[in-house]
């Protein structure tokens, strides 16, 4: 039997990831390769880094980005995906703005590798700062090409013409011609084959008509009527439903299995290739029955596996070359030494991993939910020894990613099953599979040593993140002696990207430590921060959040068991500050108010941005208060929504959001950074309410 490489979802992969792919992803590799080319994505490497190690996005021709049909229909193409952050609306707006049409005149095709250019994966908050400019370049070049053609036809200059609503007019002579008529011309085809130079003049912010406005999700009606086809909903003629046998624990290997009980079932396909055992049947229920029948016969070899109760000790023990603090404190009474921890968390998008695979004439098509369509294509190429043109990955708008869907496990599994079955197969991971076999947000230990000088100003800062990553690791606060460093460890679970990456962990530790230092200094936490900040954008978000929250007023009138806290941070070019009020009820923390201020430069779509910020600050309450993966000997103990408690309606406090629009600053992404200040603001509020310092995420109260 041919051995097909497949995803080993066990511990070994986590090590591979943590040492290579993940480090690359977190490190300099995630930064954009800012070229003057029309389309550019992220410079990436490593398997998990996406794009199969290729550069995401090469310069593309106008035709690869914009297609204008004879009837005037405008189709724009992008490799980006929509999984809730609003890329569909904003990329549509970018194209509409530069083509001088309204947003509803644009049809946007996203993430079909058979049709679209590779814009890199949808991650790292890169859609706004890199894909939007690429699309604007392509669309502006298309419009200029059409203007030039019309001018040539009428023996005029482009400057004498106007383009509006898909038509070019010459006001002086009242002549007009539609984009569709022009685009059918041989000369237009030649012009659209060219790759724009990358310095095409785009519409200045002050003239924007579509960008900068709250354009609604173009397919919103399909969402509210249930008509949108998510990856889980894709159905193909003759399709079967698949299920994959999972080990009982990480590190377990299959010793033996009897496939006969499933083979005896009507219409059931069973396939085994080493440890990969899977079934397919006409219904998901039938497939589950077949899987249960053979799973009962499976014998597994188990090995000793880690426990979450030892997690932080393990991470510290396995940390490599942790540097010592080289800054001696002047006055030990004015110094802080604290250790912060951040637990493993799961992304838990509401739509678990899903894929439908179909083979036809040696070619493979897979519909799946992934933030990395071209990366998944390359995973499939490698898994089956196919050339890129023999694999097509189609990503319908899908049910949430949060950094958790950079990989193609379900796609590869569905394709293996479909190959064995000789028919299309749909594979939809269960919630328990998603909790157990998807990669996790990394856990981390952060060690902070800091001191104040005689004037109660920050004198030294020593900040070590073990395992969770370097995002936002540098302190924004003014300090003479400072050392911040990320140190790798040997993580027990397979971890990867998560919305905001380690910015959440590093901001949590830094902002909690700053609060402790403010107390040592006898200063107000807001004043202490402002006194150490120079960046006007960071100051502005702090001041805006504090003003909206009435920080000064609330500070004076605190009821028993109520506390307020504040935190701020910056990541990937955007800034957030969050104020929180908590009430301690029956020994539990209830967050009653959050006020966030956010600045990501020029706002592309205020409606979408507000939704992102409201959602992100709320989502962050989960890992702040409760979300924590528990595992024992390689078994996840809370692999369900019943046991892994994510934010619900009852947890939502009063939320106010201030958006700071900066027309002079290029737009940064906004899908991640708004999360990062929630947890420390809540932790600092818990201290004010209880006198207990919180140094763990999720926050645990010691009961008196």
């Amino acid at each position, binding site marked *: 039997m041919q051995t097909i490489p497949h995803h080993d979802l066990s511990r070994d992969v986590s090590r591979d990831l943590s040492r290579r792919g993940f480090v690359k992803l977190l490190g300099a590799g995630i930064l954009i390769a800012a070229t003057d080319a029309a389309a550019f994505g992220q410079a990436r490497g490593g398997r998990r880094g996406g794009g199969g190690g290729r550069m995401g996005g090469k310069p593309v021709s106008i035709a690869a980005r914009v297609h204008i049909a004879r009837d005037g229909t405008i189709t724009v193409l992008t490799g980006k995906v929509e*999984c809730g952050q609003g890329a569909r609306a904003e990329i549509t707006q970018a194209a509409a703005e530069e083509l001088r049409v309204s947003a509803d005149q644009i049809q946007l095709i996203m993430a079909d590798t058979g049709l679209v250019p590779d814009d890199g994966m949808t991650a790292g908050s890169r859609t706004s700062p890199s894909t939007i400019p690429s699309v604007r370049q392509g669309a502006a070049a298309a419009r200029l090409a059409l203007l030039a053609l019309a001018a040539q036809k009428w023996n005029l200059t482009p400057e004498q013409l106007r383009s509006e609503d898909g038509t070019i007019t010459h006001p002086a002579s009242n002549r007009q011609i539609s984009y569709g008529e022009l685009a059918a011309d041989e000369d237009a085809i030649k012009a659209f084959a060219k790759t724009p130079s990358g310095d095409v003049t785009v519409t200045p912010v002050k003239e924007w008509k579509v960008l900068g406005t709250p354009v609604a999700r173009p397919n919103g009606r399909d969402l509210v009527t249930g008509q949108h086809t998510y990856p889980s909903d894709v159905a193909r003629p003759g399709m079967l439903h698949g299920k994959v046998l999972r080990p009982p624990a990480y590190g377990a290997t299959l010793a033996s299995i009897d496939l006969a009980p499933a083979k005896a079932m009507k219409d059931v396909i069973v396939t085994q290739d080493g440890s990969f055992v899977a079934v397919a049947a006409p219904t998901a229920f039938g497939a589950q029955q077949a899987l249960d029948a053979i799973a009962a016969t499976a014998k597994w070899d188990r090995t000793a596996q880690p426990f979450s109760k030892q997690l932080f000790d393990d991470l510290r023990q396995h940390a490599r070359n942790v540097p010592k603090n080289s800054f001696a404190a002047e006055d030990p009474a004015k110094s802080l030494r604290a250790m912060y921890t951040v637990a493993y968390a799961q992304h838990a998008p509401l739509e678990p991993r899903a894929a439908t695979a179909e083979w036809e004439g040696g070619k493979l098509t897979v519909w799946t939910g992934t933030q990395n369509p071209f990366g998944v294509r390359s995973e499939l190429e490698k898994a089956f020894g196919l050339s890129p043109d023999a694999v097509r990955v189609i990503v319908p708008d*899908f049910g949430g990613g949060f950094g958790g869907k950079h990989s193609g496990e379900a796609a590869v599994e569905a394709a293996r099953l479909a190959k064995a079955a000789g028919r299309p197969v749909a594979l939809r991971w269960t919630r328990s599979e998603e909790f157990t076999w998807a990669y996790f947000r990394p856990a981390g230990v952060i060690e902070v040593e800091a001191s104040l000088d005689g004037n109660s100003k920050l004198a030294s800062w020593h900040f070590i993140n073990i395992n969770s990553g370097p995002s936002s690791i540098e302190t924004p606060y003014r300090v003479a002696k400072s050392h911040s460093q990320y140190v790798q460890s040997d993580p027990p679970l397979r971890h990867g990207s998560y919305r905001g990456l380690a910015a959440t962990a590093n901001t949590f530790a830094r902002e909690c430590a700053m609060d402790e230092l403010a107390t040592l200094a006898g200063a107000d936490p807001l004043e202490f921060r402002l006194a150490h900040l120079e960046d006007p954008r960071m100051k502005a978000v702090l001041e805006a959040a504090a003003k909206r929250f009435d920080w000064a007023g609330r500070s004076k009138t605190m009821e028993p068991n109520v506390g307020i806290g504040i935190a701020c941070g910056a990541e990937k070019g955007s800034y957030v500050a969050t104020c929180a009020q908590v009430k301690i009820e029956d020994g539990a923390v209830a967050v009653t108010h959050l006020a966030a201020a956010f600045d990501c430069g020029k706002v592309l779509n205020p409606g979408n941005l507000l939704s992102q910020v409201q959602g992100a600050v709320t989502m962050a309450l989960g890992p702040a208060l409760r979300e924590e993966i528990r595992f024992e000997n390689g078994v996840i103990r809370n692999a*369900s929504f019943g046991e892994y408690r*994510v934010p619900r*309606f009852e947890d939502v406090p009063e939320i106010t959001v201030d958006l700071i629009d900066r027309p002079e600053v290029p737009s940064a992404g906004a899908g991640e950074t708004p999360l990062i200040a929630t947890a420390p603001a809540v932790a600092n509020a818990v201290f004010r309410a209880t006198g207990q310092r919180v140094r763990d995420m999720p926050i645990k109260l010691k009961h008196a």
Partner: protein
Amino acid sequence: MDATFHFSVNGEPHAVTTDEQRPLLDVLREDLQLTGTRYGCGEGQCGACSVLVDGKRVFSCQTAASKMDGKKIITIEGLASGHTLHPVQQAFLDEGAFQCGYCTSGMIVAAAALLKEKPNPTDAQIRDGMNGNLCRCCSYVRIQSAVRRAAAGGR
């Protein structure tokens, strides 16, 4: 064991022969191609699979097909009247009360059931009535506004 069950879905009568333990969710999605009702957890914790059975919200992932004999089922696909959206659908659209949208069908069905029972809910009643539905994008603020808007007749 297979048996035949008779029920109506969105006003259409159906006779479905299937395993009696098979979840209604699978029957709707796989046999009737009504994929607007979604799987989120399989344990009645997220509400993505919500449908109306005789006017009440149920979790279709937790409901065996055999329990549906003689029932009237309404799914997200059956809420609108022709091109006119149900007031809750219209309110969700007007408020942009979704991000990824995967929870939206279940949210709308839950809200429709809530407003049928309590046409003018307080904010606390909205919170309690919707608490069985998860939105992982945490668009709760917008969803709450959409339910309020629907209750106020679209204003």
